[in-house]
């Protein structure tokens, strides 16, 4: 298996959606190839960092506008 093929299968590998044979040959390559190992690790970290990041609180004015709009429309929708 070549480095290029690792990149091609990377998404399915990270999502654990590969059949066991292919997965095994990827892992064999990873044991030997430091560059690919780093690519896999840092890509995995990228996904985790984005996935785990906390969204910032709404800016005060944004929040106020949202709740004013809701108050206005919801009451009307109910009436």
């Amino acid at each position, binding site marked *: 298996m070549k480095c290029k093929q690792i990149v091609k299968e990377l998404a399915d590998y990270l999502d654990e959606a590969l*059949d066991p044979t292919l997965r095994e040959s990827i892992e064999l390559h990873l044991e030997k190839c430091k560059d690919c190992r780093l690519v896999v690790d*840092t890509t995995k970290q*990228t996904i*985790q960092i984005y996935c785990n990041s906390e969204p910032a609180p709404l800016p005060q004015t944004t929040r106020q506008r949202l709740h004013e709009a809701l108050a206005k429309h919801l009451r009307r929708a*109910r009436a």
Partner: protein
Amino acid sequence: MNSPKLNPAPPHQLPSQVVKDDEPILVAAARAGDISAFETLVGRYERKIFRLTQNITQNREDAEDAMQEAFLKAYEHLSNFQGNSRFYTWLVRIAVNQALMKLRKRRPGVVSLDEEIDTGEDTMPRDVEDWGPSPEQRYEQSELGSILSKVIGELDPPFRVVFQLRDIEELSTEETAEALGLSVPAVKSRLLRARLKLRQGLNQYFRRGKES
């Protein structure tokens, strides 16, 4: 080829902290006209929905409008919500539509999201460096937030939106495809490209030895 597929649940898909047990009760109450129940749901998701609309539109004003419209539409169409999907997933799809409309209005020349695009050749990434464990902990929460939004903002919209839905909002590949009117293979190839580009973008902040 008939290769057996493993369970495609991604390893980073932890049980979502988003869903709380009382959600079906709140949704039912809101459907019955309880405004405060709906406002509780809004309060629970407003930050995430605003980040979503901001990441897609890359424009503060559009992001605010899209978020507002999404919540109002959700309330209006609450009777159409089928209890068999998560309320949040349903809400995300509404918000994505509103945000995409804003994006298309402001940038009509932008490549259409459901168009076939060349995702480029899958070449070995450059800048292969070690980040060490928990690289994000080297930054303050707010600083990390601006790094993440800056780097994702540099992606082209067709890639940005797919990553946002699949890896940040944790929709499945199929749900992402359906929400964007894309084929599953198109979602997969865009997702790979997006992940690699983000990895590349984050590398300058997270590589080991980089002083923060």
